[in-house]
């Protein structure tokens, strides 16, 4: 159906793709797998006409094609869900979904009604319960991700590329998406599916294409593949997934949160958080699970002092009452927060790797009142090494790094502050299995060094892998607590389903 032959793509400095060939078969889900920076997104961008300049050729329905822009690709019937959200924040869901293909009345006026209805259908199909007229800016990342999916479904293309569509959404939405994918398969469409979540691949993928360092390693049928064999192909060597050896007998309380509650920014009498209390022990890893919209992010942000005007409740660190009014205070109190949306809240994309990593600890980077670039460089190099960040130099602009590597930089910049309590919101979103493993190791190691760690995640395997203790949230309240060894997938999920449905 869609064949790419000897595609080579260079960016100033980097060779992202190097003689890559791949075939997308109709009626099948073609999984494209590879580590961060392997070149997956770049390849997909070429297929969908984002990059017009590349070597090699693309054959679509036995016709050689060369798309100059996305519009041509769309017209030809190739739709893509980009890894990075591409929505207009101040336009509504409808307006975004129909952007560039508006329906107009005979007088050339926008036919808002019809578009609204069409959108409503799509949203229902995707089980996203927001009004078509909500502005994107007011949606959470997860909800935005779903809108992106809807956007791709609107033009019923023959080839649908999904670049990490599930990175920001949780179980329930994933289920919905998969059912839709099944449907698309029946309609005999070709689907390219990129994800770092192996379990998903086994659920839906029929074929796999492995990329490594910009080269196509091999492709074949998913049948008969195992975790290890896939990882083997991706990484080029064995790696064993760490499992938390459940440690008990930690007693020294590090952080204790009492009756935290938070008003909704607009609907003043709505509570996003309802008297939440929990304790975190020294060296403990506390996993917080919940479905999208459970307010886990709000919880972390509130503890981090970002909503001081709307929140109530107390936070104690090492038994000392704190009065955190802002991130500044939180940091000096020994808290660190790795935010959920790296591009929006984590990174200064226009600055280089070094500057981003050092941003939180500049005061330590000074000598005689001036920044000491040697100190900065060595700190940056340290974390580039520790976290295996794939960049050709610490002077590389962050915006040119692959999604996964960007995430590692956010981690690095927070680890640099040597916090007492490290709060991670979706820490491995969009990170490849190998790097994930690195990060798990890191988390465990940090815990052993005595940090208290809170991990918010929508990925059950992840939660189970790292946590000593698991809190489950739904609708702004804690609905259950499990010790690691008596936590199971389904008793967690049960607790996570909101009662009010």
């Amino acid at each position, binding site marked *: 159906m869609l064949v790419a032959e000897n595609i080579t793509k260079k960016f100033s400095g980097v060779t992202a793709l190097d003689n890559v060939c791949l075939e997308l078969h109709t009626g099948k889900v073609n999984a494209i797998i590879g580590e961060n920076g392997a070149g997956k997104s770049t390849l997909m961008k070429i297929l969908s006409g984002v990059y017009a300049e590349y070597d090699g050729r693309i054959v679509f329905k036995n016709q050689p094609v060369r798309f100059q822009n996305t519009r041509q690709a769309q017209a030809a019937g190739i739709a893509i869900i980009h890894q990075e959200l591409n929505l207009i924040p101040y*336009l509504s869901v409808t307006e975004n979904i129909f*952007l560039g293909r508006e329906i107009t009345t005979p007088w050339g006026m926008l036919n808002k009604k019809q578009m609204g209805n069409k959108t409503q259908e799509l949203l229902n199909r995707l089980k996203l319960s927001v009004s078509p007229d909500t502005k994107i800016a007011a949606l959470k990342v997860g909800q935005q991700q779903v809108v992106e999916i809807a956007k791709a479904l609107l033009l019923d293309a023959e080839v649908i590329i999904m670049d990490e569509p599930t990175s920001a959404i949780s179980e329930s939405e994933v289920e919905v998406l998969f059912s839709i994918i099944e449907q698309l398969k029946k309609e005999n469409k070709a689907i390219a599916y990129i994800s770092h979540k192996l379990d998903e691949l086994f659920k839906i993928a029929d074929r796999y294409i492995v990329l490594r360092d910009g080269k196509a390693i091999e492709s074949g049928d998913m049948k008969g593949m195992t975790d290890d064999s896939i990882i083997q192909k991706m990484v080029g060597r064995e790696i064993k997934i760490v499992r938390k050896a459940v440690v008990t007998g930690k007693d020294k309380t590090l952080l204790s949160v009492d009756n935290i509650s938070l008003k909704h*920014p607009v609907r003043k009498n709505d509570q996003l958080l309802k008297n939440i209390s929990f304790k975190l022990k020294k060296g403990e890893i506390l996993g917080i699970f919940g479905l999208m919209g459970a307010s886990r992010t709000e919880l972390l942000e509130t503890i981090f002092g970002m909503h001081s005007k709307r929140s109530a409740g107390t936070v104690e660190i090492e038994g000392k009452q704190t009065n955190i009014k802002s991130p500044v205070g939180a940091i000096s109190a020994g808290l660190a927060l790795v935010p959920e949306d790296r591009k929006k809240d984590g990174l200064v994309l226009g600055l280089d790797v070094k500057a981003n990593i050092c941003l939180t600890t500049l005061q330590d980077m000074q000598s005689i009142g001036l920044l000491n670039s040697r100190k900065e460089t060595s700190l940056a190099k340290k974390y580039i090494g520790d976290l295996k960040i794939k960049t050709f130099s610490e002077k590389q602009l962050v915006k040119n790094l692959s999604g996964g590597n960007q995430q590692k930089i956010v981690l690095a910049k927070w680890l640099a502050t040597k916090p007492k309590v490290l709060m991670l919101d979706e820490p491995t979103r969009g990170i490849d299995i190998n790097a994930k493993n690195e990060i798990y190791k890191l988390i465990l190691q940090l815990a052993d060094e005595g940090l208290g760690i809170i991990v918010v995640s929508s990925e059950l395997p992840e939660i189970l892998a790292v946590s000593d203790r698991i809190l489950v949230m739904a609708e702004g309240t804690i609905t259950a607590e499990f010790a690691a060894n008596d936590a199971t997938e389904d008793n967690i999920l049960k607790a996570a389903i909101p009662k009010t449905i």
Partner: protein
Amino acid sequence: MEAVIPAKKYKLQLAKFQSLIALFVLCLVISLLSDKFLTATNAWNVMRQISVNICISVGMTLVVLTAGIDLSVGSVLALCGAITAGLLKNGIEIPSSNLYIGFTILGAVVAGLLAGSLLGWFNGWAITKFKVPPFVATLAMLTIARGLTMLWTKGFPITGLNESFAYIGTGWFIGIPLPVWISGIIVFIAVIITNKTKLGRYIYAIGGNENAAILSGINIKKIKIIVYSMAGTLAAVGGLLVTSRLDAAQPNAGTGYELDSIAAVVIGGTSLSGGRGSVLGTVLGAIIIGVLNNGLVLLNVSPFWQQVVKGFVILIAVIIDKANAKNE
């Protein structure tokens, strides 16, 4: 700051109303201090006086919505006014072959408007073709157009244009001054465009997130060029109004208008970073400024104090706007 987003959104919806509050307070205060303020004649005066700024500011709004800016409106206004006046009065003479082309009012007016579109188009072209920042491109045009005006007028006003041309700027039609009609119609069209057409939608999209717009297959270069041309044309309309109202084209007309109109846009709640705002907001902004100027004169504030007061009032007006939006 997740949490401010809804706040912003909230403000967005209320923006207009909030400017209305500011405007209302302003009117109240003035009318308490001067009995001359709330009179029909004065009301029409204010309307007539702001009509030029409204024409310009509508164009400016479109440009700013695309996250651009147009500093050249003032000079373009002057040049187009001068061109119309010149053609109307002297026509074109080619000395070599002693050929003379006379112009009807319509002809001259159209020529002026075309000149405006052309200059605007040039802005858009420089910006999209060479990726020159809008600020620089239009700043260059600001000087260029002013220079051309001087060359065209030789530094002297062009006066004594014909009766019926003056009517455009001074006449009335069913009880409403023509300039008000004209600016009103322009506002109406602009509102339609921004809310009801693809073009409008794309303008917001480009300003909101240019990458996303490109990825959605929008031809952003085309849109931008269109927008800057519109801004130029509207500046030309402003030029016509000024010229015909004074029955004279001043070489230095419109100096500093760019700031006035950007002020109207921003006070009207349109964000200079693009993607958010509305034409109606701008209209309110322009009215606020107009009422303010009018009021300061009526209240007999000494010219020197006027500027101080004006500054503070503008500041306060915007703060009132923001007030409701301050949830954090």
